[in-house]
């Protein structure tokens, strides 16, 4: 119950809706007198780089969206922060590290290839490679065996010529659709 309660509380914080909610907060914000703060100037930097980095960060209050894709106010601010960090001369990795230091590894959209995160990357690849190797072995063994047993027919373990002929016929029918 507390869980749900908190969740609901959260939902009214930034109007969390992935879908914008910009008139809600946005309008209020746009109405902000820009001169209110001396700082908060958005430097102009290479936008392609900003977007590339923003695509590697998750919008923490959205569903599956990156800081690049999301239209909520928080993501806008995060994009601004990326610009500020870039303007400070930081490298891509340093920018990501900065975000990680504040928001936790949670903010990165794919796990870092170190420690536990490495496992997430390795397991699928290992499973696939293992599968291919296993498949290859099974096939090779089968091929060798079929050669040994009936070198001319290639018919595995079906020595019965009638069956053999039927299979061949069926397959041909299947192929040609007759």
């Amino acid at each position, binding site marked *: 119950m507390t869980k749900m309660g908190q969740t609901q509380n959260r939902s009214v914080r930034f109007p969390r809706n992935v879908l*914008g909610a910009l008139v809600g907060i946005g309008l209020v914000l*746009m109405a902000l007198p820009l001169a209110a703060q001396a700082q908060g100037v958005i430097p102009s930097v290479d936008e392609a780089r900003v977007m590339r980095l923003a695509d590697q960060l998750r919008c923490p209050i959205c569903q*599956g969206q990156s800081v690049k894709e999301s*239209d909520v106010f928080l993501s806008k601010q995060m994009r601004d922060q990326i610009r500020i960090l870039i303007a400070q001369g930081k490298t891509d990795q340093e920018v990501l590290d900065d975000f990680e230091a504040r928001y936790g590894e949670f903010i*990165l959209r*794919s796990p870092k290839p170190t420690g*536990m995160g490495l496992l997430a990357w390795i397991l699928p690849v290992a499973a696939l490679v293992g599968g291919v190797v296993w498949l290859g072995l099974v*096939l090779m063994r089968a091929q060798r065996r079929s050669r040994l047993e009936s070198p001319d027919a290639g018919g595995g373990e079906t020595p019965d010529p009638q069956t053999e002929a039927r299979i061949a016929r069926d397959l041909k029918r299947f192929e040609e659709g007759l």
Partner: protein
Amino acid sequence: MTAALAAVMVGMGTAWLSVRRNDWNLARTTRAAAGVQFVMVLVASLVLERAFLANDFSVRFVYETSSTDLPLLYKITAFWGGMDGSLLFWELVLSAYTLFIVFRHPANSRETLPYVLFTLGLIHLFLLGLLVSYSNPLKPMLPVPMEGRGLNPLLQHPAMAFHPPALYLGYIGLAVPFAYAMSSLAMRRLDNDWVTTTRRWTLTSWYFLSVGQMLGGEWAYEELGWGGFWAWDPVENAAFMPWTMATAFLHSIMIQEKRNMMKVWNMVLIIMAFALSILGTFIVRSGVINSVHAFAQSEVGPWFLVFLAVMMTGAFLLMFNRIQLLSSRHTAEHLLSKESTFLLNNLLFVGIGFSVFLGTVFPLLAEAVRGTKLSIQAPFFNTLVTPMGVLLLLLVGVCTLIAWRMSSWESMVKNFRWPTLAGVAVLVLLLALGMRKGWGLAIFASAAFTTAALGMDYARAVRVRKSQQGMGWGQAAITTIGRNRQRYGGMIVHLAVVLMFIGFAGKMFSTDTAISMAQGESTQVGAYKLHFKELAERQERNVNLQGAVVEVYKNDRLVEVMFPAKSFYPGRPEPLTEVAIYRNLWEDLYLVLSGVNENGSVTLKIMINPLIMGAWMGLPLFTLGFLVAVSYRPKTLGAGGKEKTS
């Protein structure tokens, strides 16, 4: 009313179970039970639906998901707009399926029926148990409110009206081959009957699963306003995982049917497919995995988990107990054979399924092991799944060109010559045009290869038929398909897949700009000149839209007037984004209203998504292919009699 219904439902569930367990000869009772049970569930569903139509807010579920001002379509579909109703809908479909099985079960394998019904009965028991306890959609609401809370505005979209039922039809449909598989195990029958009997069930459920996901993608694209259709959200993954297994299954049962191979493997696949569809529902409903999608967290989560565990354990125990009966005498005989491409296909689908599963549960695992959260989102999945997807696309072509059992090098070279050339030609052409996106190139080249392979294969069959039977081209083209619907239905589906891949590839080339425009200003984006004419307010159904009227010119000709907007739903202060899309064959112009500024200017997010039409056009073609394929009946059923082509 509710209580009575609930009692009857439970009574039916248990009675039914014991009937079947005790006496296989009580076929008539079983039938009647299935009938009564279906009618009961149907009545419950009708009562709920009536409550929706009559705005009867004394029913809690109606209060929670509907309101008086909701358009009729969404009142009807609000039925599955929340968990309780979804479960009831699920149970309704399962009851209908069960009834269908009872009456249409092939006479020649009558003895399997009780086993099948027993398995399905267990699922019924679980669902009905939930429905009468934790998630009763007919729970009353006191005092009766005047107005409902309304359906989540996000769900008020045509695709969303049909996306969940399509998915459910798919999920539940998988229960049927699963039940048949279990009964063939229980009966120690080692033939392929269960595969043949359920072929259409499998195909149909798989079709609905696929369509459900396509509709989901379309919904995301049109409603969520970030210009994409697939976010690898846990909930999407939940639907995708059983699909990968079902797809692998669909392919590998062909091997079992044709070559009597891979019996154990198919068992594993169908168990996994069904288990993952339960897991999918569990993930969606339990809120265990971080997703804003996740609907209300509720008490049913643990029960789903228990059911899942029991079901999987039971199925695997049964399978391992009978494993010696399942050993197949055949394996693929040659590396260069159609069989091995099927094996590779299965490996890739399972590989994709595993990657997605891992990516979905890994954050939880990481948290359990080291206590801090991490995220796994699109970049991870794209990196892993894209290569496997491209390989699969390529494999479609390879598989078409390669013969069963064994291919000789000579015939291989002969068959592969033209498709390979087509692929390479496209690759060279695109490189020459300056395209430098690796996976984009790979997809387009593979698509060309595969299309050429499919086309060549078909053309050859048509030519053979024409010369053998002296038909005209047109007639030959149609009868070729008609005479081998399984094969050419498959071909059409594969063509649809190629189309969709082209759509996916197009997404890699989409551009994205944010521009602020004052009223009367114009801006050039790609081939389009956008002119911000004015701000406007419109009323549509129950929704108030406030947005910008944007005229789109191409080559100085007005081609479209677009209206990206914010939509205000009754009783919801937070507006939603209403995307405007101008579609043509080559690309979509996709406008999102980011905000209206103080001085009356608007900030627009403008995306151009090339070739995305391919992804949508895939759907009708996919459906056509499915219909052709499903109209084929396995030989065990249709005794003689030539099928007429339509």
